[in-house]
């Protein structure tokens, strides 16, 4: 991904699962900060694969805090997508771990 100034990132190996890597940018004038761009990569599986774009879109514009993120990731999982190697909490965890 194109590294824009202010990009923060994190890697997180989900317990019993796969490696999740996130790069994101924040609008820090908001409180809590708001995600303005996000890219989730790693060796997980997601079916259908194209759904990754939907997940990323749902997270852009989200307040960077646990409750809002969990709500959005859970709504994504509820669409019936099969994610293998990462849970809702794993994805929330890596997004919040970015520094």
């Amino acid at each position, binding site marked *: *991904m194109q590294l824009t100034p202010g990009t923060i990132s994190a*890697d997180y190996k989900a317990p019993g*699962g*796969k*490696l999740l*890597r996130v790069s994101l940018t924040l609008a820090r004038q908001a409180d809590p900060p708001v995600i303005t761009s996000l*890219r*989730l*990569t*790693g*060796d*997980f*599986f*997601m*079916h*259908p*694969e194209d759904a*990754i774009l939907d997940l990323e879109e749902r997270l852009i514009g989200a307040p960077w805090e646990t409750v809002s993120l969990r709500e959005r990731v859970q709504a994504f999982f509820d669409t019936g997508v*099969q994610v*293998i*190697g990462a849970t809702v909490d794993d994805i929330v965890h890596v997004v919040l771990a970015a520094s």
Partner: protein
Amino acid sequence: MSEQWRLLRHGARSAYENMAIDEAILRCVTAQTSPPTLRFYRWQPSAVSIGYFQGIEQEVDLEACAARGVDVIRRLTGGGAVYHDYEGEITYSLAIPDDYPGIPHKILDSYGILCQGLIVGLRSLGMPAEFKPINDIIVNGRKISGNAQTRRFRGILQHGTLLCEVDAPLMFTLLKVPNEKIRDKLIASVEERVTSIKREMGAVDRERVTQAMIDGFAEALDIRFVPGDLSDHEHALAQTLREENYATNTWNYKR
């Protein structure tokens, strides 16, 4: 009654051709213009493949690959980065409709069933192979095979590797390591956690091993194989997919 599948025993091709052929077969199997298919193939030149969701620059030392003439390609399937050595690996792919008898809708469960072909094959060669979720096959606690699946066009494509010989230092030359300090540790850890046909059997007889896998699939999934070739349509489709997708930077650098 056993199901009839086509068996393709392909030689070595480029990464771009191989991934295009796998997709072309999947499309034709699901369009019912080709029968369920098991294919064996090799990589020439040797190549690194990355999972659908991986960042190419995060995972691959592109300069090191270029310097050694190693191709780099993004797969249609998720999972991790793999170094496919021309000598070091037997690669297979299988394509079936997604309503194939006995295959669970739950993808995690279907790995265990489709991997049985390799497991039965490895056991027939004297190796105590077992399935290890999510998508690995292990022998004596060490990984010998990694597998990856996609479901598209109402079909299932699973491809995977059987390690014949491991070169961990080369692997970590081509793949990125988080930092130089832990390179040696990673190499040692692969040597500890990964095994190969050579390590288990002392030598690699590719013909014998491949035949054991074919017989393993036949037994595990109750298949009768008919040797065949790609259809003209699959050939043409694979060429288009290679040129318009797999060999393009748009695809390979999309993440």
